[in-house]
Each structure stands twice: as structure tokens, then as C-alpha cells.
């Protein structure tokens, strides 16, 4: 039963070894593929995944099956389709895909093959974060293994379906995680996001219909096919379906990553799995899903990890990996640290992001250096509105504004103390 409750990590062993093809097959690996490709039509696979209620694990939470079903399959100009795996995990504080990539690469491959079959793509790309050397090695190896066993290549499992998977290691930059910037990078262009519409589903890689899925999302797929929709829908505790990797970093006793049902209360993650705060530190707040989500407070501990529940509490589930703010860390400096990252990683395409983020950094630095003015807080608030959703070309700047706007809301006195000069000595991040 342990296995069934933790489908994503069932092959991941504590000894840090990784699952070989034999390991993977021994726990039912590639059975989902076998079922999909021999018993189901592509449209059926789409429907299964839709019915299972799988939502994208990259942060946006869009229905995976619905996304697949929107791929144009009819007109002649849409004959070539691509599947692209977003394995460019660069969100600060997020390390969930890495575990799946390094420790159970076949799980991802099986997910890719099923997804490609569902949208009838014959080429799939894995766009892998450049620094994930170990993942690259293990994926390369897994690709060879899968090919030699007939799971990949021509006429997969005698079904007549062909698929080639190409591993592409990124040259770097956070913006490549934005799916259209990823496509540009994959094409060898500057990694600037593209205008939407047209969405990649219509005009994606090289102008062809393209589905882009996150690593963790695809890792769910084999199990849905193997164990069925009913089973999958029985895993979660709340409104959303399945399990998810949740993590915690910061001054908790036991930072780490755990596969838990969707809908697990945040309190349980922090207090049970992460073991609570380290001695001498108190919980002051946390970012629920990576650097580009709004701060939440201890009062939100009983909110559950569901897309809509977190949104209702004023933040986003994002990647589901919590970044913990303790009482001895200055939130202003923490925000500065994040904003420096975002300012650095702006692609430079649109004005608010390109020029607004560096100004944000300048203001925060001035404030911390004791040269801030009260009206600077208004300027910062103005920037959080200016760089908000819809005002910029992509989601980078609005994401960057989330920790800042919530810090201004929840920790305003920390900002003001720097300006008024009554600042208690605080440890820097």
C-alpha cells in the first residue's frame, strides 16, 4: 500500500541509488504505456488524463488532459506536433523535478511516451536545466535502455507508433522556464517569451503545435494509465487530484522533499515532515511554492496545499516547495535577495520588467542602507502594481512582485524601521 500511496517516489530509495530499467519495470514500469498504446486510442488517453483531474505541476495548474485535447489534430498544416518537457527547474527554493529526474528517469520517459502518443507527436524534447549534470547522465542512459527494449524509437511495442526523444541541456537563465522562452531557446534564439496568443498549442516549436508539460506532471501519467482513474482520484485529500512532491527549505529541523496527497495541510508539511522550526527560531512566514509566490503567515498554516485553496489565501501553490522565513531573518533583506535574482534574470524585453526590477532593487538597497525615505515605500507599492499581471509581457515580473507586495503588506514595520532608523540588528539571509 505504501507503493500505491506514493506512486511518484515509489522507486526512489534512501540510498541515493537510481532506478534502472529493471528496477522500474519490477514495480509495474511501462505497464501504463503498454495499456495506452495497445488498448487505447490517443483521444482516449487524453480523456483518461482529463478525467483523472491531473493539473500541471509547473505552477499554473492547468488541466493536463484538457491541454492535450486542445492540440489541433485535423488540418494538414498541423501534421507535425511536438511534445516538450519543461525540465528547466530554476525557481529559487525548488528542487522537486531534480529528484524525479535523477532517481527515476524511466518514470519521466514513460510519461513522455504516453503523452506523445496522446497528441500523436513523433518527436519530444526534454529541455533540461544546464546545471542538472547528473540528471542529464541518467536520462541519456535511460533513453538508451528504453530504446533497446523497444519502448522508444520505431514501432513502439509493435503499435506502429514512433517516437524520438531528444535531450537538450539548457545554456541557462531562469526565463527559459517560461514555456515560450523555452521554445525560443530550444530553437537557438534569444530566450525571450513569445506573445500569446497564438499559444504553443497552435504555434509552438518551429511554428508547430506543441504541448509543453512539466516533469512532475508527466511523471503522474504512467500511474493514471496503469492504475486507473478511480485509483488516482482516491489519492488526494482535497479538491485537487493525485499526489505531489512538497518540500521545505529554510530553518526547519528537517528540510526536504516528500510525496504527499494533494490537499495536505501546510501545517502538516512544516510541523510533521519538516520537523518544525529549528530550536531558537520561530516561524514568521513562508513562500508556499517558490520565490515567485506571495508570503503567507503562521495564521495560514491550516490552509491545504490545493491550487484554489492557496489562491484563496492570497498566494499561489506554485511548485509546492515552501521557503520558510524565520523570525531572525530580515524579510526586507530576503525580498532584496529575491528581487536581485529576478532583476538579473529579466530577459530585457518589456519595459516594466527590464527597468522596473532594477529600480526595485535600488530602492530596497537604499532602504537597507538607511538611505530610504517613506515615499520609497509608495514607489515600491507602485511598482508592484505597475509590474502586475497583464502589464508585462510574461509572468516573470508579476511573479517577482508577489513576495514584495506581500512583504509590504505583512512586514511593513520592518521596512519602516530601516527608514526611521529604529532598526534592530537582524541577521542577514
Amino acid at each position: 500500500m505504501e507503493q500505491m500511496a506514493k506512486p511518484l517516489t515509489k522507486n526512489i530509495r534512501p540510498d541515493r541509488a537510481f532506478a534502472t530499467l529493471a528496477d522500474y519495470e519490477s514495480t509495474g514500469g511501462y505497464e501504463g504505456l503498454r495499456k495506452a498504446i495497445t488498448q487505447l486510442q490517443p483521444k482516449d488517453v487524453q480523456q483518461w488524463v482529463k478525467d483523472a483531474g491531473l493539473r500541471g505541476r509547473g505552477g499554473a495548474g492547468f488541466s493536463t488532459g484538457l491541454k492535450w485535447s486542445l492540440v489541433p489534430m485535423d488540418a494538414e498544416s498541423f501534421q507535425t506536433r511536438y511534445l516538450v518537457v519543461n525540465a528547466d527547474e530554476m525557481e529559487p527554493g525548488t528542487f522537486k523535478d531534480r529528484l524525479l529526474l535523477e532517481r527515476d528517469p524511466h518514470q519521466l520517459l514513460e510519461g513522455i511516451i504516453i503523452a506523445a502518443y496522446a497528441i500523436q507527436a513523433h518527436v519530444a524534447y526534454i529541455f533540461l536545466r544546464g546545471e542538472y549534470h547528473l540528471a542529464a547522465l541518467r536520462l541519456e542512459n535511460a533513453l538508451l535502455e528504453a530504446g533497446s527494449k523497444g519502448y522508444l524509437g520505431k514501432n513502439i511495442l509493435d503499435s506502429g507508433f514512433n517516437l524520438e526523444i531528444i535531450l537538450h541541456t539548457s545554456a541557462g537563465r531562469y526565463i527559459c522556464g517560461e514555456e515560450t522562452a523555452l521554445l525560443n531557446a530550444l530553437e537557438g534564439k534569444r530566450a525571450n517569451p513569445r506573445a500569446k496568443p497564438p499559444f504553443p498549442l497552435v504555434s509552438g516549436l518551429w511554428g508547430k503545435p506543441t504541448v509543453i508539460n512539466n516533469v512532475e506532471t508527466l511523471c503522474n501519467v504512467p500511474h493514471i494509465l496503469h492504475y486507473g482513474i478511480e485509483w488516482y482520484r482516491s489519492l488526494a485529500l482535497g479538491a485537487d487530484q493525485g499526489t505531489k512532491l512538497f518540500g521545505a527549505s529554510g530553518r526547519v529541523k528537517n528540510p526536504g522533499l516528500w510525496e504527499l496527497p494533494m490537499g495536505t495541510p501546510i501545517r502538516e508539511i512544516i510541523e510533521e515532515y519538516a520537523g518544525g522550526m529549528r530550536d531558537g527560531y520561530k516561524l514568521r512566514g513562508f513562500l508556499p511554492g517558490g520565490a515567485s509566490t506571495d508570503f503567507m503567515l503562521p495564521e495560514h498554516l491550516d490552509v491545504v496545499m490545493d491550487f484554489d485553496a492557496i489562491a484563496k489565501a492570497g498566494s499561489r501553490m506554485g511548485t509546492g516547495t515552501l521557503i520558510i522565513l524565520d523570525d531572525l531573518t530580515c524579510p526586507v533583506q530576503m525580498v532584496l535577495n529575491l528581487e536581485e535574482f529576478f532583476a538579473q534574470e529579466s530577459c530585457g524585453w518589456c519595459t516594466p520588467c527590464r527597468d522596473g526590477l532594477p529600480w526595485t532593487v535600488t530602492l530596497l538597497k537604499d532602504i537597507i542602507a538607511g538611505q530610504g525615505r517613506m515615499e520609497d515605500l509608495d514607489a515600491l507599492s507602485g511598482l508592484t502594481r505597475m509590474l502586475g499581471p497583464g502589464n508585462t509581457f510574461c509572468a516573470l515580473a508579476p511573479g517577482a512582485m508577489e513576495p514584495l507586495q506581500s512583504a509590504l503588506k505583512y512586514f511593513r514595520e520592518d521596512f519602516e524601521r530601516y527608514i526611521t532608523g529604529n532598526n534592530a540588528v537582524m541577521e542577514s539571509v
Partner: protein
Amino acid sequence: MARIEIDGESYEVEDGDNLLSACLSLGLDLPYFCWHPAMGSAGACRQCAVIQYKDAEDSRGRLVMACMTPVTGSMRVSIAAEQAREFRSDNIELLMINHPHDCPVCEEGGECHLQDMTVMTGHTFRRYRGRKRTHNNQNLGPFINHEMNRCIACYRCVRFYGEYAGGHDLQVFGVHNNVYFGRFEDGALESEFSGNLVEVCPTGVFTDKTFSAHYSRKWDLQTAPSICVHCSLGCNIAPGERYGELRRVINRYNGDVNGYFLCDRGRFGYGFVNSPERIRKPLLKGHPEITAAMAEKHFHDVLKAAKATIGIGSPRASLEANFALRTLVGEENFFLGLDDTEHTLLETITGMMRNGGIHSPSLREVEQADAVLILGEDVTHSAPRLALSLRQAARNAAFALAGTMHIPLWQDASIRQIQSQARSPLFIASICATRLDDIATDTYQGGPEDIARLGFAIAHHLNHESPEPAGLGNAENSLAAAVAAGLKLAKRPLIVSGTSCSSLAVIQAAYNVAKALPGQNPQLTFTMPECNSLGLAIMGGKRLQQAFERMNENLADSVIILENDLYRRAPGPNVDLFLKTAAHAVVIDSLINATAEKAGLQLPAAAFAESEGTLVNNEGRAQRFFPVYPAPEPARGSWQWLTGALENFQWRHHDDLTAACAITFPALAAITGVSPGADYTIKGCKIPRQPHRYSGRTAMHSDINVREPGQPHDAETPFSFSMEGAMAQVPPGLLPVIWAPGWDSNQSINKFQEETGGHLRDGDAGVRLIEKSGSLEWFRDIPAAFKPQQEVWRIIRLPHIFGSEELSLHSPSIAERLSSSCLFMNPLDAGTLGVSAGEQVAIINLAGSPEDSARDEDELIDLEENSVLEIVAQIDKTLPRGLLVITAGLPEFQFINYWTQVTLKKIHQEGLS
């Protein structure tokens, strides 16, 4: 059409247009940077924010970027809403964070789109207290200054340079607020269209280096509508003058012809007007300085004394000047002054255009072509602006596909994204690789005969009545079939050919292809060498060779040469003999050249910027240019020297001359309608050439005399040399300066267009003289294939944008970019000679050149040394064997201009072996 509501007012707009373009087309003010009417939307600058409401009840709305929002029926938006205004002002504040406060010393000041937009948004107070980021600037060559600190990162430069114009060496580097627009290292920008950066850049990053060298504010320039004289396309330009010097040339919008863009020869070729090589005073050989009156008297005396006077016209002089000359010397004594082959080609082309029954497209129509065949031209060099239009035509398939994918046509990056799967067919047959090959569906390289044969084969595939070339190779035949298939599918196919190959067969093959095309809309366009080549050919006249014969036969004893260097038109010895035989040779020209040097009498002619006249471009469009400033005395318009010599002096004014020309030549009858005449006024005022802010008029000459001189009177045109007058009701096609309140930059053009990127209100300038009519028989003279012979090569002279055109050669900035004077050859040919790139070879003329017949005995002695030229060889792997290519028109090649068959020897450098 869609009805939408903007700030409570109801408007009719183009359905599917983007909201920004629709607002501007309505004449509303909405600031923007990255959007450009010719390049569509980018969504980068976020400046055109407006509020869009869900429905009639919605009072909050949401902020959208107008440039990225399609217009839909019954949509409700607000430009004036406080939230949108605040966003636009805040956005400018962000753009200004790193923008230097150097407006007073910036060349863009006074015509800066960034200034205009900043004022428009009301951003006045700067809150940012940090340091500005700075960049290093690059030396981008003789045309363009680079001042990167001013950059607001709108991305227009790279979108124009790379995506629109196909250049590769201007890129964006770096990220975040450190993006850098430049080259990978210092060096001259390679694109032939780099000058447009000056106008595409919304601020002062890219400015005109030639203008900086003698800078003046926009409002201190005197300007008149003008036409580019550097090729046959007739792009509309606005030259600016201060202190009697031509300071710069900028684009003048014409919705049918050049739109927003010029080529670099057109923009920077103007330097010849200020050249020290100008003929500034009359010169009578063997006499001390003479006055204009004396020169005029001498000129009249020559005419009176002459038994008969030959008049040699010019394809770079106006219709009126040529017509005045023709009238002065009489039709029987009027010769066109063209190279003999070119004369034949132009006559043939004129016949095809007038009687061939095929439409000759404007550049706007060229951009709409959905399949193109170029026969024998490297358009970038022979008619540069046409190449830019053809580059856009290649995108039409992507636009069509975008339609099926519901991608709006202004969504620029998305259309470019699908371009790889849908590109309109473009086939190029040429002597060697061309600058458009990168977007070609297929290319073919061969000798002129082979190009013609391919053309004939394509025509035959399209229509079996068209004759078939005999013995065509399989490869050529299947290429011809593929090209024919591509053209057949098109709705608006276009054939491009011209005079570059100097081959009649190529032109005839092009006609056959156009005639063979199915459907109603075949189009055929020809490039020609000069600004009035077609006008001169329509006027018609005898060959230069006949003038030589007439002089030789002693049927005439004097000659008037109008704006023409005969050494560029005929073999040197022939011209020598002609000029030697003439008792009197009078040259009317603006620049000293070999012909003028030999003339007994030089009469200083006004350059294009100092005179008026009508030119006919390659499309058959008559357009008028006007003097920007009065011709510096004693120079005067060529037509004035000539009409002054007419006995009964019947044409006192240019308008009279134009009218007489129109009456004499029915084909030119419409030229009187090209522009209003000198009697045109608005509320009793002429159109001012000087902007209303023209400053210092009372003081600018005070170092000479504090008494302000009276403004010169202009009796020839509707313009005044003044700042007074009514600008408001001037038809946009006649506006010297584009300006609207709040819009000091060239972007103000949207206030004068029917819609953004469309035609000018009240019509674009110019009148088409030729519409398709008649039909010609199939051309049947198909040449044999070109066969290389052992140790014999044929020299082909191909045009180059920088070097082949006579006037721009005298422009200092163009001179820095001149084509190298080397010889291009096939690598196998080079191999058999043992020549590597960069080594010297000797070209040895073989017999049979036309000059032999004209040689007298003295010159035969020089034959030996005059038939060898030592030259640096370069390798071009696309050039067929047996052919050599040099740049046409370079002065250093003048003496080998009429060599055709040559042999080559490698020069062994002494001391190296």
C-alpha cells in the same frame, strides 16, 4: 469594419486591426515605441496601455496593450482613463531611468519620438535616485552614429535591421537592463538599408553621421519635396538645407513607392551636391574667368554659328531639361546619350511596358506579390529599395497561413515564427550569388544566355505557345518546371528583370514568362540604371553612336551635352574622337567629369536639390522634384540654360516647359498633373519650405551684413523660400516637412495618412503614365547556351550599390563604402591559372572590341599598354566558369568598359619564387 467606442465616442475602424493602429488611424494620440506600421506589433515597450471594458456596464475595465489587442465589434475602451494615463506616465518614468539628460546636445532633439511621447504622457518628475547604467559606443562605419546610453530598448532597430531588412550584423546582446544593440565588434554596418535605423530608432541611439558632421536642428532646415536621383525607383525624399549646403536626406513617405524606408545610397548619396568637384562657375576654355552673362552670350553665339548642333540628352536629367535640349537642337539632332546596348534594352522595355499588356507594379504592389521570379538581377545592387519590398513579398505565404491559424497579421513575431513553414516562392536566376538568395526558394547561376534560356523554358512550361529553348539540360529543365509550377499557383505573380545583364534575351525571356502566366494579374517590373532612364526612353531619340557618325560625316559641327559623361556611355577613343571633331562642345552639368573637362564651354548646372523637374521611375510613375534652396549663382537649372537659348524664348517658366513637353509627347501628357504649378496658393500664400520655428533668419547672415536680405522669390514652384504660409491645408504629398502638433518626429506621418501605413490623404505623390494595354508576340530569339572557351573569359559588369552610380560616387560617405575594384572569378578557373584569392592577375583584351574602329594612328601605338590591366583576383564560387565579374561604373575600370573577350595571366611577383 467594426464600430467601437473610445472614451465615449463611437468610431468605425478596420476589423481585426490592432487597437493602437486603429486609434492612430483615427487621428487619436496614443503613445508607443516598439510598434511600427511597417513592422507590426511587438508588445515590448508597454507604452500604449489603454483600459478595455467588458461591456457597457463595466466601469473598472482592465489594462491592455493597444498594440496587442485586436479590434472587435462593439468593444469599449478608454485612452483617457486615469489608470491608463498613470500607467503610461509611469512607464515613461521607467524608460527614463537610464536615459541621459542630453537632449540639448543630442542630434535627435527636436525630432525625437521619445521627447514627443514623454511630453504626451505628462511624465515630468524623476523619482529614481540611483546611477544610470552606461554603455560603450561602437564605430558603425561612415553612415551611422551609435550612442547606446540613449537606448530605451524598444527593439525596433534589430527588428528592422534583421527581420525586416535581412541584415545579420546588428544584434541585441546581454539581458535585463543591460541589453545592448550593436555589432559583435566595431565595423561598418553591412546592410544596404542601415540608414533607416536613423528614422526607425525612436531616440538618438542611431543618428545620421553625415548630418552630424554639419549638424543643424530639424527646424532650422529648409526642405522641399524631392525624388531620389540615385536609381530608377524614384523613392521620395526630403532633403534639408542650411547655409546653402545640403545637410541630409530623409525619407519622405509615399504609400505607393518607398513607404517608410530608403536605401543607403539614396540617403547618403547626397554628398555630391556639396562636392568640391561641382562645376560652380561657367568655364570657357582658354579664357579667364567669365560671368554668367558672358557664358550665356558665348553659348548663344555657338548655336548661331554652328552648321548644325547635336544635342545629347541624359537619363539623369529631367524630362523638361531633355525636352528643352531636344527643342533647341531639333528632333533630328537629339540623341539619347545612352550606352548602345542599354539604348536597345530601354527601347525594348519601354515597348513592353506600353504595348505588352502586362501590369507594371508599384513597390506597394510588389510587396503583395505571392510568387516572384527574378531574371538576371541582383536587385539589392541595381534597385536596392525593390529588394526590401521583395523581402516582404516572400512573407505573404506566412500571412496566408497565419490567417488559417487565426493569428492576427500585425502579430509580427508570431508570423515570423511560422515563416519557416510557409514562404512565398522566390526564384532567382543571376550571374552569381545575390543578396536575396537567403530567402530564395531556388537559385540558378549562369551566363546571360543561360538565364535567358531558363526564362524561355519557364515560359514554355507555363504556356506551350511560348517557344522552347533547344538542347536545355535536364537540371535546367526540371528547375524551369518547378519555377513554372510555383508561379502558376500564385494569385499575384511577379517577374523582375532589368538591364543589369546587358542582355536583350533576358528581358525578352522575362516578358515571355509574364505573358505566359495564367490569370489576370501577372506583373512585370524592370530595373533600370538611372533616375530618368524610362522617361528618356519614352521621349525617345537616336543613339549616341549615330551622333558620333553624324559628327564624323561632318553633318554637324557642334554639340551640347546635357548632364552626361559620355565616357561612361561609349568607348573612350570614340568619345575622344567625337569631342575632338566637334568645333564647339558645350557641357551643362553639375559635376566635373572627363567629358566636361574636354568641353570648350562648361555651364554650371543646378543639382537636383537646387532645381526642379519631372522624372519617370521604372514603374512608369512621373514624379516632380523641387529645389530645396535656390541654385547658387551662377549655376542654374539645366532647363534654364537651354530655354534661355531658344530663339523666341517661348517658355519663360518651368510649368510652360512641362506643358509643352506633355503636348509634344502624348505618352507624357499626364505629367502636368504631377504637381500643382507655380501659381498654386493656399489663401494667397505659397507653401513654406521653412518650418514655422525656423530660427535666426534675421541673424544667420549678419556676419556678412546686418541688413536681412529679402527672401528669394520662387517663380517656378508652389513653394516659397520662407517660413510664412499656410501649412494646414497643404496636400500631404506636397508637404516639405512632416510635423503635427505634439509630434515633432517623423512618426507624425500617421497624421497625414488615410490609415497607418496606408496612402497619404489626398493621394500619394506622382502620376502613373503607363497602364497595361495591347499585347506583343512571343519573343523567339533564344540564344545558344554560354560555353566557356579555353583561356578566354567574358567580362561581365554588374552593378554595385556603392560604386556603380555616377553621382553618389562623389559622396564622401559612400566613397568610404565603395565596392572593391577587383576581379571575381570561378574557383576552378582560378585553379587552372594557379591564382588564389588576393593575388594579382593581368587581364589582356582580345580583339573585337568596338573601339578598334575608332582608333586613329597615334592611339594604335598605345594599344599594347592599353590592352592590359593588372588587378586583384577574388574567388566567387557561385560564378560560372568562363565568366569574370567586375563592378560596373567604377572610374578605375573606365578604360576597360568595352572589353568583352579577355584572357588572363597570373602575375608572378618578383623575388618570391
